[in-house]
């Protein structure tokens, strides 16, 4: 900045020969440091970098290391190579938790996407009380997961479940549903609770995307005789794809690493039918005290997370290229 202001055209011709003589006196060190971009940037980045390096990057590495040790709570472990992973490889509960996690993530994400998109389309209609509906819809996402999960726990109670009662009153079923005691029911119940909490996030972010699509496109398509389905399929969906990809990446990542809901509702039971990798990691690592093994389970989640991130990253890039965008 400084050199640009001072580099007047008349001086520029002589610059090459007399740069040293013409140079202004060097300002004091403190002032130079204050204006040095590198030093300033370093100082500005320092707080965030310190926090993240110490409490995020280092633990990430420490976690990988712990996965190779037999550390327990209160006892630093020694390096045992791949023993934890070999043990997990033969552990049917671990594989069950991987299966559960995938089932939970895939089914909950698909449901969240479809219902969330539907809700977003409904909210995008020109309705009275639009902002009221939008505010109300987001509530499940704002309230602490654990506290809403406790409400679901009560709703799913084996004796006093309001859903069982209502269905019996309506004559649809004749005995109470054992929501959390039966493996299949328990899986369906936790997925339903997760979907309940996830719909608002998907709906509101997709709604923001929908609102950027110009009305004129719909009008043009309608004049060309497009049906409502065609409007959705050939106008809305292509223009919404980038934001769908990002929203669903976030949604998948958060669902895959979910812990709170399962911990409140089932703690992994009945007979490990709802154990996710995160809850198993907690059970073995913290409750059971086997830090090494718990860390190994957590590390085993990383490849799945990376795959999800890369999938959406490259998916997005292809989309940009198709639309003729650079970069």
């Amino acid at each position: 900045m400084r050199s640009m202001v001072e580099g007047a055209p008349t001086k520029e011709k002589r610059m090459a020969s007399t740069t040293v003589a013409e140079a202004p006196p060097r300002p004091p060190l403190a002032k130079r440091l204050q204006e040095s971009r590198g030093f300033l940037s370093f100082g500005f980045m320092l707080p965030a970098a310190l926090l993240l390096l110490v409490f995020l990057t280092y633990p990430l590495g420490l976690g990988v290391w712990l996965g190779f040790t037999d550390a327990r709570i209160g006892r630093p472990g020694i390096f045992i190579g791949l023993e934890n992973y070999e043990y997990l490889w033969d552990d049917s509960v671990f594989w069950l938790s991987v299966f559960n996690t995938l089932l939970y993530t895939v089914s909950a994400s698909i449901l969240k996407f479809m219902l969330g998109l539907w809700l977003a389309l409904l909210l995008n209609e020109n309705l009275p009380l639009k902002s009221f509906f939008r505010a109300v819809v987001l509530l499940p996402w704002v309230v602490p997961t654990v506290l809403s999960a406790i409400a679901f726990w009560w709703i799913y109670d084996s004796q006093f479940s309001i859903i069982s009662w209502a269905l019996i009153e309506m004559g649809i079923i004749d005995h109470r549903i054992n929501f959390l005691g039966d493996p299949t029911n328990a899986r369906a119940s936790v997925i339903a609770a997760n979907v309940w909490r996830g719909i608002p996030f998907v709906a509101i972010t997709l709604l923001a995307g929908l609102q950027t699509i110009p009305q004129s496109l719909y009008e043009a398509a309608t004049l060309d005789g497009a049906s409502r389905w065609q409007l959705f399929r050939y106008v809305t969906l292509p223009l919404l794809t980038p934001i769908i990809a990002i929203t669903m990446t976030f949604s998948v990542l958060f669902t895959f690493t979910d812990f709170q809901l399962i911990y409140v509702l089932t703690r992994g039971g009945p007979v490990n039918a709802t154990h996710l990798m995160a809850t198993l990691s907690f059970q073995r690592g913290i409750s059971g005290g086997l830090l090494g093994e718990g860390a190994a389970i957590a590390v085993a989640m990383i490849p799945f997370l990376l795959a999800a991130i890369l999938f959406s990253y490259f998916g997005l890039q292809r989309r940009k290229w198709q639309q003729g965008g650079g970069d």
Partner: protein
Amino acid sequence: MSAVETRNTATGDEGGMGYLQSVPRRIVTIWLPLLVFVFVLLFPFYWMAITAVKPNNEMTNFNDFSPFWVVEPTLQHIRYLLFETSYPGWLWNTVLISVASTFLSLLAAVFAAYAIERLRFSGSRQTGLAIFLAYLVPPSILFIPLSVMVFQLGLYDTPFALILTYPTFLVPFCTWLLMGYFRSIPYELEECALIDGASRWQILTKIILPLSVPGLISAGIFAFTLSWNEFIYALTFIQSSENKTVPVGVLTELVRSDVYEWGALMAGALIGSLPVVILYSFFVEHYVSSMTGAVKE
């Protein structure tokens, strides 16, 4: 006459093409599903609230009392919660920890976002990307190594364990959000100030920060909500009852193995949700913008 007509078409235009659908059709395809959605999304809150004020005999007797209503509302559960448990202490802990970690994260994020977005040091793009990736690292894979660290640093069972670890997910989020916000402030303002002899510090505090107050509010209340809702770190790093936060305290202290105090549990869940819901109701637009902003950028 023609002016009126054009104005009419213009206003009709803003309403989209809803007029192409008949009213009964709109009721079935839009209002009905929307009301079902709203009912399902809100029912757990209603159920929570009604249970919190229901006497125990009504709660377990569906034959004589309609479960959807309460005949004799009672405050006994709330009284029990506030005077016979450590609940007020948990509320205070949660407020303290959320405010402190939000403040710490915002401070770090403002500087980092400004450096990345405006100082444009070499490698700032990569730093921005790294911050974004840091946001994708879930607490579920960090809590075991962090618990080891917390223990070694002597922070176990203190509020500092949470105040220092919550920024791991707050700083990336706030930085990312503020980067987007700073980007929308014109460069020219800064250039003018530079020419007038302002230092970078003056530019940040006197020009950028006043202009980005809405962004700071968005990031701040969102970070506050995230730390209020956090569970896994609080469950792992805190042991003694008086140091717990609301979500952990309600789940681990109010649930006894023999009998569930559903009324007190629901009251605890309700009161624990109220602060964020109240905050949310005042700043709905900020919430939406921070949520969609974090995804869009």
